[in-house]
Every structure is written in structure tokens, then in C-alpha cells.
């Protein structure tokens, strides 16, 4: 079944290094249901680009929400602990 629902996010960081770190932190975790949901992380300059593809909008929402939560932790760590 085609992953017809999609969402692209661009999250600006302060430097390209930060965006690269974000990619490395988010990438390792395996997707629970790879048939229903796909996510790709790429750093483009200082921007973290996340591309979500999903089988329906509910799965998409849940996936996006989860990734954003993780990004929050990354950003907070960068703010407080650099």
C-alpha cells in the first residue's frame, strides 16, 4: 500500500554542526511499523529536514509528534549543555 500521506518539516538550528548532530541522534531508532510509516533525516546547512511518509494521517500525526518530542530534548540539551 502506498504511503500517500506525507509531511515535510524544516527545523532551523544555529549551526550546520547542530543540524548534523540532530540527524545522528534521531536516526538510529528503528521504526516500529516500517510498512505503515517512513521517516528520513537529512541536514541541509543549518536546517534539519525531516520527511515523513505514512499510510494514513493518524499514523502520520503520531509519528511526527514523537519525532518533535525528541527534537525538543535535542534542542534543550544544546541550549543548556553546550
Amino acid at each position, binding site marked *: 500500500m502506498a504511503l500517500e500521506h506525507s509531511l515535510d518539516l524544516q527545523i532551523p538550528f544555529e549551526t550546520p554542526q547542530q543540524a548534523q548532530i540532530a540527524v545522528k*541522534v534521531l536516526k538510529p531508532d528503528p521504526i516500529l511499523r516500517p510498512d505503515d510509516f517512513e521517516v528520513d533525516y537529512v541536514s541541509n546547512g543549518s536546517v534539519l529536514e525531516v520527511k515523513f511518509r505514512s499510510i494514513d494521517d493518524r499514523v502520520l500525526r503520531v509519528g511526527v509528534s514523537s519525532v518533535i518530542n525528541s527534537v525538543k530534548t*535535542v534542542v534543550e*540539551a544544546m541550549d543548556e549543555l553546550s
Partner: protein
Amino acid sequence: MVNLNAVAPGGGREYYVALGLEGSANKLGVGVVKHPVVGKHEGGDFSYDCESQILSNVRDTYITPAGEGFLPRDTARHHKNWCVRLIKQALEEAGIQNAAKDLDVICFTKGPGMGAPLHSVVVAARTCSLLWGVPLVGVNHCVGHIEMGREITKAVDPVVLYVSGGNTQVIAYSEKRYRIFGETLDIAIGNCLDRFARTLRISNYPSPGYNIEQLALNCKKKDTLLELPYTVKGMDLSMSGILAYIDNLAKDLFRDNRKNRQLFDRDSDEAKISVEDLCFALQENLFAMLVEITERAMAHVNSNQVLIVGGVGCNLRLQEMMQQMCQDRANGQVHATDERFCIDNGVMIAHAGLLQYRMGDFVKDLSETVVTQKFRTDEVYVAWRE
């Protein structure tokens, strides 16, 4: 002969420093530990005496209202909210001003535990590692408890009883592995106590188990004991039966079910048994079972030392019963730690992780940092012991 000094500390230091992050259940703990470089660690078997110094130990527990247990999603949210704050606090208390230079390794709980909470913590761990250029080490939660217990109590080679909300195991070290000799066949003892606490609707603060312990202490009729199913099966034990039984009794008590002759006097219709009596009976039975399977393991490996680790290890009655058994068994000894270390904490992860790191184990690729709900204690290769 094991050489714990094979990997030198960074920054030209004469000591190692590790940051530990723990979040496998509802406790989020961050700790910083220091190991001095000591000559005797070059050869021999001294991993139980690292002369560790605890530079900081901070923890925040996600406590749910009475009658409720903690769920993964809410727990994960709690950890996400507190993680960076606690890391900052721990570093400050430890006097770490430049993490990149002052830390040798960042240790995190790889498992076992609840998936989402574990994940919340590892995201922070990875970020810090990349920000500071400090390597990562994934630690088995149970091994963390064991190594911290050994270091604090200096017990050289005890049989370990690991009892917590999620685990009930009797462990003995043999040939580079912590081997599981006995364990629960269904639920963990902490889980059993927590669930009964929910049935009783008692407070989860500071922890449900602690409140059951206090109620049991207040039992007025310690001479007569309510009869409960006793379910030791060889070296293992089962607890779901006793929980179901006592849950039913409690419910009957609350519902005033006068037909239940165990609870209500036939003639006067008065309650013969109080909540305190139930707690007392539950503890006496559960702990007797634990002590029995521990004694079996001790007989099997010929040991007379016991180390109790894990949250339920804080319970003084359990410690007392275990001490009595050990004494009667060729004058043995019980070792236990206090609530700073019994209960999940970051320091134990830092300490065990640092032992791993000193033996050359650290993450080479971030794909190794994926957390895992199931992670058996005997899967870990214990390089730091002979």
C-alpha cells in the same frame, strides 16, 4: 588477572569520571562518579573496590496518584521534561565545568525496562555525546544494581538477590557472567506489592512498597498469620496466585462481604482482619519465598553471603529475614545498600558503565545505542571480573 587500568583516563587526569543516566522505569536518575587510578587494579580481581567517589546523585521520580500505576507514555513525558535539567544539575553539583574535557564516558541504561522512557533518556545521552565528543556506553540496568551493590558493601562474591518493581532474580557470578539461578515465573515482587497497594488505594508517595511496609509494621496481631498460597517452585517462585488471592480478600473487606468467614466473625459480623494484617501476611509470605530461593542458590554454589539490590531491597523486614537465614546458615552475612542506591539511580549506571569502559567497551556506532525492553542479566560479558 584483570587489568582495570588498560584504558587511560582523558585530559591528563589521574582519575576517571563518568556521567550516568537512568530512566528504565518511573525514576529518572543522573549521577557522576569518579574512579581514581589505583595500582592494585592493574592485576587481580578488585572491581568490588574501585574507591569510587560519588560526585553527584540526583533523581526525580514520577509519582502517580493513589490507586494508579505509571504508564510508559506519561513516564516518558516526565523523563523528557526533567532529563536535561537533571543532567545540568548533576554536572554542577559535581563541579564539572567543561564536560568535553572533564568526562571520560557517558553511560546510559540500554535496558531492560520500559521502551519509551528508556528512549527519552538515550536521546539526551546521544546529544551530549555528540556535543562534547565524549564516548557512550550502554549499561544493563540489573548489572548496574549489582556493581553498585558490590562497590558500596565491598561484598566480594555474594549471591545476589535483585528485587524491584520489574525484576526478581537470584544471581550468582560464574565465569564472566552473572548467571540467573532463580527468578520469578510470572510477576516481579515489586510489581506484586505495587499492585496490591493500588487495590488498597494507598499513596504512591514516596513509593507504594514503602507504605505497605509501614502498614505491615503497624499490624497488631503478628502472632497469628493469615494463610496465603505459598508458591516456591524449585529455585523459582511465582507470585500472581498470591496476589490474586489477597486482592480478593481486600476487595471483600472493602465491600463488607460478611459471607467471607476468613475476614468476618461468624457471630459478631465484625471484621477479624485489618488492612495492616493483610500487608503483614503478604510481606511475610513473599519474603519467606524470596529467602527460601536465595538459600537454595546459596546451597547450590556453596556461598554464605547475600547482597540484596533493587528497590524492594530497601525493605527492612526483608533484610532482617535474610540476615536471620544467613546467620543460621554457617554464620553468613547480608549486605544491603540504603535508598540512595537500592532505588534506581544514575550513579549505578555511571559506575557499571565506567567498569565497562575501562575494559575497552564503548559505543562505536550510534546504532548500538538503540534501547531494548528485554535484556537478560546473563547476556552481559563481565570483562572486569576474573
